């Protein structure tokens, strides 16, 4: 892509995360799109290497091709020119539970080494320090999506030894493997962070597999609340070039809603 014009500032953490997440999407993937960076990642993939990415929103829009960046997952622009509009019951029963969703996206306030996510409460459930919004569709997306991508910024506060509440199950829950518990989906495949990328190896534990240029393993470890395993062959995570950054800033999110 174009490299001639220098950018006023290099890619931000959000831009790198959106770009890295977009690279996980293949053309034609049936994707359950969440709001925020996942939304941007999907629209970036659609504008570049995956024009036939099939976007489904929990609000009921199936095969959406929004002409503006949706501010919410219920944006009217998701309806106009969509392939189909269904009830939310249909979305969860006929699309998700039926096994039609290839990729799901989630984030959270806390994540543990097995990719369990918390979006419910910080502190005790019945006497919380912070009351978060709750599951929404996250729990069932984590149960059913064949591949689950998690996008979260790394810090000791968010990457924790133990989640205060498990809203959305990862690979190992209370010592039990998700397959043994009867969950049909594949569980988390990658955690895309502002410092690098985590994969999940044998045993379902997160392993640092990629870091962005200029980021050290020590930096990543310092931002993680458990002793983080590191892959034998650590790769450099690809960063977006000038063309992609311009596309993100000028076309896909000109109001900087998510960037």
């Amino acid at each position, binding site marked *: 892509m174009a490299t001639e014009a220098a950018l006023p500032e290099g890619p931000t953490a959000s831009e790198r995360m959106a770009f890295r997440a977009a690279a996980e999407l293949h053309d034609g993937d049936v994707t359950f799109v969440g*709001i*925020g960076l996942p939304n941007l990642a999907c629209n970036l993939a659609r504008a570049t290497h995956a024009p036939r990415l099939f976007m489904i929103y*929990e*609000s*009921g*829009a199936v095969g959406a091709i929004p002409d503006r960046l949706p*501010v*919410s*997952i*219920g*944006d*009217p622009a*998701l*309806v*106009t020119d969509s392939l189909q*509009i*269904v*009830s*939310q*019951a249909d979305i*969860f*029963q006929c699309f*998700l*539970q039926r096994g039609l969703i290839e990729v799901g996206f989630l984030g959270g306030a806390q994540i543990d080494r097995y990719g*369990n996510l918390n979006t*419910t409460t910080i*502190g*005790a*459930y*019945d*006497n*919380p*320090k*912070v*009351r*978060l*919004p*709750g*599951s*929404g*569709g*996250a*729990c*069932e997306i*984590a*149960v*059913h999506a064949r591949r689950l991508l998690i996008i979260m910024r790394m810090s000791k506060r968010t990457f924790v030894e133990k989640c205060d*509440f*498990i*809203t*959305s*199950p990862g690979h190992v*829950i*209370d010592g039990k493997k*998700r397959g043994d*518990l*009867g*969950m*049909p989906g594949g569980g988390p495949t990658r955690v895309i962070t502002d410092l690098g990328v985590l994969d999940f190896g044998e045993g379902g534990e997160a392993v640092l597999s990629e870091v962005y240029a200029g980021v050290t393993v020590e930096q990543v470890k310092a931002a993680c609340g458990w002793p983080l395993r590191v892959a034998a062959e650590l790769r450099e995570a690809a960063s977006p070039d000038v063309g992609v950054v311009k596309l993100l800033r000028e076309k896909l999110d000109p109001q900087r*809603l998510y960037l």
Partner: protein
Amino acid sequence: MSKLCSMKDAISDSVNDGASIVIDGFTHLICFAAGHEIIRQEKRGLTAIRLTPDLVYDQLIEAGCVKKLVFSWAGNPGVGSLHALRRRSEASTPRETRIELEEYSHFGLLSRLLAGSAGLPFWPLKNYQGGDIAKVNDRIKSVTCPYTGEKIATVPALTPDVAIVHCQRADAEGNAQVWGLMGSQKEVAFAAKKVIVVAEQIVGNDVVRSDPNRTVVPGMLVSHVVHEPFGCHPSYVQGFYDRDNDFYVAWDDISKTTESYARYLDEWVYGVPDRAAYLKKMSALADKLRAKPRICEGVDYGY
């Protein structure tokens, strides 16, 4: 028989203190006008049900109408928290001022409404095999499938006392036609004991009959029909007006303190007698939000 009446009459006839209510809608078709009337009529002890209690449910909580919230995602979408809810559910608040929470995921709460709408005692779903949602909610149980032996989660039927369903157009009998995102409008209407239909437009029965596939709620379920243009602002109605996204962003500051919250309710809820007066106060904004037409061609029902 015409069921047309004012919002004031629909609410005072249908919503009693202690009732369980749904004001449905998912981003789309959320009837703020009904919520504001409930606040003005000072209803108390309500069980408020919805997948996504958003600003209008937070307002009901702040105004003291709600005893219990049944929900699956409580936030200001894309913006942040519901501050009244947080003030009445977090450890920093004395327990006696907190409201009761009954929590599901979307699929779980939808399943409760599906059971209610279908006249079944419970609904099965493949979910909650691991994680803490079922641990803190003893209404989530399981059955063994009699055919496969698989263990499947169940939730009990939910049959709210009153459902309030906003739609683009309805006739005077309450046959309601909806397009765009449909939320759980159909499920709540069939599950509820009483249904209030609120419409942007009242049309003749012949208009409904010209496009029967569009009817989501049949009039036979409906007790009251309210004509309420712009009844959803700051939510939206496809083909009528856009979502007031700026308001949702501004709401975060408005609702942060009880003082600014009270000022808002005084001006925009208690300070107006009805939605028509609210609309008059925001007429310039309403013009800005009005939808640009995008007409679909229609279909041939001939035979």
